[in-house]
């Protein structure tokens, strides 16, 4: 496993915070101060074993040295590279030095952040363009209005031309064509008025820079994913919870938020907070045992586990939910488990295995590819529902809990990624498009 250059920066930060001299630390792990200096300045990679020794000497977890908050930064930079490749620009300018991405981030954090920020902006703008062109191509009202306008213009043009170009037109025809022009002009102005009204009603936020789902995520994230109002005996109405929330800019996002609140409220009733926490302490995070204890649906337990108030020192619990098309409808990521910002996720996620085998529980320890691979325990289940009645469509919903891993590695752990484009697993059987990363 390749250790990465930013590890050096973190070693240096930790060492200076602990007021340990460079020479002392180097001596205690058996390397020269000069070599440690190179490591600390991200000029030399540090192996697993040495990192373990350095961490031991400073009494910190090795993960704390190799982990960083820069994950998103790396993803952003890689997306920028992928974007340049897609446009063919990377070939003209020469490929960026992907293998030195960590050195770049380590040595020029400001520039790297700006580049990744620009990339995020480009992504957002691309989405706006997409939504506009989709609207133009698909919107039935726009299409019907356009047809009306073209029809009216066609008959106006033909009729006007007849009146102008026919010298010897009979009075009865002249009168009839003049009436046509009058009627078609009225129709044209009515259609134009309706169009203007329609375009006025389009909320600016509807075509804004983030999708409704992302707005709900931003709001829930700001609330630490837990809505304590719903634990009260008589919770406030859902609308009161989202009144004036800046993150929920579009009406579509507010609708999604209300649906989330209603579901969370039902979950809170089925699994009262105190009793549920006690049960988790007693039974552990086994969703099936918890569901049995409370006689509650498995889905409610999944959602409850992922939205409990976070106890001191505990690791957050992630949850992803998808519908039958595989589209993610709920995403709560956890550090180290990268959720794709756009497009489809890794096909090897146990979530999709569960989707293909409804009602069969899937328990899987996964190894998430990243700068530093990280393990997670996942529980996944797919359940059908028929909100449209017995004859209505059967809707599938799969959900996957993302929990801290068991300490010991066991056979059968699965290597997964975030999404193919930025996944380093070169030899993956599930790959659907080439990765921009050259590492194997």
């Amino acid at each position, binding site marked *: 496993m390749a250790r990465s250059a930013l590890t050096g920066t973190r070693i240096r930060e930790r060492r200076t915070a602990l007021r340990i001299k460079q020479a002392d630390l180097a001596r205690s792990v058996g390397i020269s101060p000069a070599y440690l200096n190179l490591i600390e300045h991200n000029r030399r990679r540090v192996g697993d074993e040495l990192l373990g020794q350095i961490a031991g000497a400073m009494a910190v977890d090795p993960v704390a040295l190799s982990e960083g908050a820069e994950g998103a930064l790396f993803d952003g930079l890689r997306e920028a590279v992928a974007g340049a490749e897609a446009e063919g620009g990377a070939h003209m300018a020469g490929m960026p030095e992907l293998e030195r991405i960590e050195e770049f981030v380590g040595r020029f954090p400001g520039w790297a952040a700006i580049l990744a920020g620009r990339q995020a902006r480009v992504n957002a703008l691309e989405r706006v363009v997409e939504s506009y062109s989709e609207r133009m191509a698909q919107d039935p009202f726009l299409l019907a209005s356009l047809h009306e306008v073209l029809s009216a213009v066609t008959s106006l043009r033909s009729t006007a031309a007849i009146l102008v170009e026919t010298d010897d037109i009979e009075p009865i025809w002249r009168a009839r064509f003049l009436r046509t022009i009058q009627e*078609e002009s009225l129709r044209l102005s009515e259609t134009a008025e309706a169009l203007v009204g329609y375009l006025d009603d389009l909320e600016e936020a509807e075509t804004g820079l983030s999708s409704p789902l992302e707005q709900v995520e931003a709001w829930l994230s700001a609330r630490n994913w837990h809505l304590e109002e719903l634990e009260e005996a008589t919770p406030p109405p859902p609308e009161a919870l989202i009144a004036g929330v800046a993150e929920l800019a579009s009406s579509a996002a507010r609708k999604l938020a209300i649906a989330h609140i209603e579901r969370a409220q039902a979950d809170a009733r089925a699994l009262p907070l105190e009793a549920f926490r006690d049960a988790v302490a007693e039974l552990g995070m086994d969703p099936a045992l918890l569901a049995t204890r409370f006689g509650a649906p498995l889905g409610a337990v999944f959602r409850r586990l992922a939205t409990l108030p976070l106890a001191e020192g505990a690791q957050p619990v992630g949850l992803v939910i998808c519908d039958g098309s595989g589209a993610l409808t709920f995403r709560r990521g956890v550090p180290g488990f990268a959720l794709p910002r756009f497009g489809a996720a890794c096909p090897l996620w146990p979530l999709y295995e569960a989707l293909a085998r409804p009602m069969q529980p899937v328990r899987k320890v996964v190894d998430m590819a990243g700068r530093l691979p990280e393990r997670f325990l996942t529980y996944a289940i797919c359940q059908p529902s028929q909100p449209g009645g017995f004859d209505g469509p059967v809707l599938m919903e799969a959900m996957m809990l993302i929990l801290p891993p068991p300490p010991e590695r066991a056979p059968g752990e699965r290597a997964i990624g975030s999404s193919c484009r930025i996944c380093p697993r070169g030899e993956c059987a599930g790959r659907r498009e080439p990765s921009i990363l050259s590492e194997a």
Partner: protein
Amino acid sequence: MSGKHVLLVEDEPHIAEAIRFILTRAGWKVSLEADGAQAYARIGSERPDAVILDLMLPGSSGLDILTSLRGDATLAELPVLMLSARGQVRDRDAATRAGATAFLAKPFANGDVLAMLDEIVTRAKEQRSA
């Protein structure tokens, strides 16, 4: 004036009236049909020299009518001028694939309808005599 009969299948009454006026003054006999579902039967019974067919019609789409025409051995060679109020490449391609002899996007100049109609009928006559 014999041999110049066109059936105009168009559901927009004002457009149909304008086209009829132009064609009639140019010596054509023009029959009107606004309902797509009736169009095929009328073509079969009236046997016009050409058909002007709107692409979007109530009852049956212009493309469906055209496909039926081309599948009928006695009507397969009938010149058809297709009109569309959505002048995209897609409509033009669809019309061509379905066997339209010519395609005109709305809005059009009156002279274009006349010129195109004359052209496809003349071409069809030449092909028959050749």
